[in-house]
C-alpha cells in the first residue's frame, strides 16, 4: 500500500515560546492511501489538534510531517473537513452549500462561472448519493440535524479530496440517526476510496468504521496504542453486537483513563 500521511515524532503546541501549551507530543503514525483511521481519546487530548496539524492549518513544533512524501508547510487543499456542527451557510440551499469549496479550489474556481449548471448538477448528484434526493434545493433550516450533517459531509467531498477529515461529525445526533450516518459514511468511503481521518470519542463508531484506531493519552496527547480492526468488510450494523467487536471496544476502553 502507498503511504499517504507520515508523522515522525511530531509535536505541536499552542502559544509562543515559554508559555506554549503542548497539545501533542512525539506522535508517530503512518497512514496508507485509502485507509480509514480513527483517533480516539479523552476530551482535550489533542485529537482535533492532530487534525489541524495534518491539514496544514497549524505548524508542528518538532518532528517531520509529510503527506505524499512532501513536508506539510501550509494548507493542503486536498483535504475536506467536517465538524460536529454542520456549519452550513443559512442563505444558501443544500446544493449551493455543497458547491462552496469549488468556489475556492482551482481549477474549479475559474470554471465555475461558465459551468455553474454542470457543477450544481454534480453537487445534486452527490447529495442524492447520500440519501438527500428531494432536499437539494432546501435551505439548512428546512433540514433535520442528520440531513444537515450529510450535507456538510458532501461539502467536504465535492472537490474530491484525498483526505476526508471528520471531527466528531456525528456527536450532536441521536443514536439512530448516528448509526444511519455511519452506514452512509461507510458506503461513501467504499465507493470513493478516499482516505478518512475520523476524530471521535465514540469507540463503537471508531471500531465499526475504521481500519486502524489510534488511542491517545490525555494532554499532551501521545499515541498509546495502535489497534488494527480486522473485522471483514463490508461491515453490517449487526457486527456491532458480535463478540469480536465488543472485545475490541472493551480493550480500547480500558486504555482510556478512568476518572
Amino acid at each position, binding site marked *: 500500500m502507498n503511504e499517504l500521511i507520515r508523522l515522525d515524532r511530531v509535536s505541536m503546541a499552542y502559544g509562543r515560546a515559554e508559555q506554549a501549551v503542548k497539545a501533542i507530543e512525539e506522535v508517530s503514525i503512518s497512514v496508507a492511501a485509502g485507509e480509514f483511521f480513527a483517533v480516539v481519546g479523552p476530551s482535550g487530548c489533542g485529537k482535533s489538534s492532530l487534525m*489541524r496539524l495534518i*491539514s*496544514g*492549518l497549524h505548524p508542528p513544533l518538532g518532528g517531520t510531517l509529510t503527506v505524499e512524501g512532501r513536508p506539510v508547510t*501550509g*494548507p*493542503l*487543499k486536498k*483535504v*475536506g*473537513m*467536517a*465538524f460536529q*456542527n454542520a*456549519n452550513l*451557510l*443559512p*442563505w444558501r440551499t443544500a446544493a449551493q452549500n455543497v458547491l*462552496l*469549496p469549488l*468556489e*475556492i*479550489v482551482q481549477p474549479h474556481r475559474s470554471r465555475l462561472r461558465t459551468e455553474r449548471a454542470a457543477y450544481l448538477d454534480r453537487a445534486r448528484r452527490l447529495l442524492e448519493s447520500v440519501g438527500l434526493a428531494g432536499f437539494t434545493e432546501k*435551505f*439548512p*433550516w*428546512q433540514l433535520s440535524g442528520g440531513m444537515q450533517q450529510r450535507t456538510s459531509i458532501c*461539502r*467536504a467531498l465535492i*472537490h474530491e479530496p484525498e483526505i476526508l*477529515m471528520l*471531527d466528531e461529525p456525528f456527536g450532536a445526533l441521536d443514536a439512530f440517526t448516528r448509526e444511519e450516518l455511519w452506514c452512509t459514511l461507510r458506503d461513501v468511503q467504499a465507493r470513493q476510496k478516499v482516505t478518512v481521518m475520523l476524530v471521535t470519542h465514540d469507540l463503537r463508531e471508531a471500531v465499526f468504521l475504521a481500519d486502524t484506531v489510534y488511542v491517545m493519552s490525555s494532554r499532551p496527547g501521545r499515541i498509546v496504542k495502535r489497534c488494527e480492526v480486522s473485522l471483514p468488510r463490508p461491515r453490517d450494523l449487526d457486527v456491532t453486537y458480535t463478540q469480536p467487536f465488543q472485545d475490541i471496544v472493551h480493550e480500547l476502553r480500558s486504555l482510556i483513563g478512568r476518572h
Partner: protein
Amino acid sequence: MESRELAIKFGAPAAFTVGLFVVWEAVCRLFEVPLTILPAPSDVFAALWQYRAPIVDNSFVTLWTTLAGFLIATVFGLVLGIAVGWHRALYAGIYPVLVGFNSIPKVAVVPVLILWFGFGEIPAILTAFLISFFPIVVNVATGLATTEPELEDVLRALGASKLDIMRKVGIPRSFPYFFGSLKVAITLAFVGAVVSETVGSNKGIGKLMLDAQASFQVPIVFAGLIVLAVLGILLYAITAAVEKRFTGWAFRGQAAH
C-alpha cells in the same frame, strides 16, 4: 393574510392613534388649555393645513439632509465595519476612539460644524452622518467577528484567502446585522439633522419650529412635531422593508425554530 390578522396589523395601530388624538382633544377642551401651552389636535391640523407650503418646503430640506447624512454613514460605516472586523489590531486601535467619539453629545459638535461650514445644509448633513454611523460600524464588525472558526478552518484548509472567507462567509453573514443597524441609523440621522437645524440653520423643519416658537405660534411647533413623527415612521418603515427584502433568510431561519 387572513382578514382578522389584517385588522390587527393595520386596524389596531390606527385605532390607537386616533384614540390618542381624541383624548388629547378632549383634555384641551375640557380644561380649556391655552393655545400657547398645548394646542388641541384640531388647532394643530389647522395650522398644518394653513402653513402647508412652508412645511412641505422645509420637510424636503430636512428629508434630504437626513438621507444624505444617512447615505454617507452607510458607506462609511460599512467600510469601517469591515476594516475593524477584518483585523484585530485595527479593532483594538479604532474601537476605543469610536466609543469615545460616540459618547460626545452631537449637539455640542454642531457649533463647530457651523463655524467650519457656515449656516446651511452641510452642518445638518454632517451631524446626521456623525450621529448615525456608529451603530453600523459596530454591527458589521460584530457580524464578521461571529463567523464560526470551524467554517473558517474548512475554507482555509482549501487554501482560501482572508478575502475569500470574507466574501463567501463573513460579509453575507453580517448582512442581517448591517440591515438591522440601518433601522437604528436612519432614526438617528433624522434626529441629527433636526438637532442641527434647531441649533443653527436657515431651513428645515427644525428651523421652522424654532421660528414658530420665537413668535409664540405654538400650533405650528406642534405641526412640526407631527411632521417629524410621520417622516420618522416612514423612513423606519422603508428601511425595515429593505432589510426584510435582503435578509429574508435570517427571518425564515428564526421562523422555523
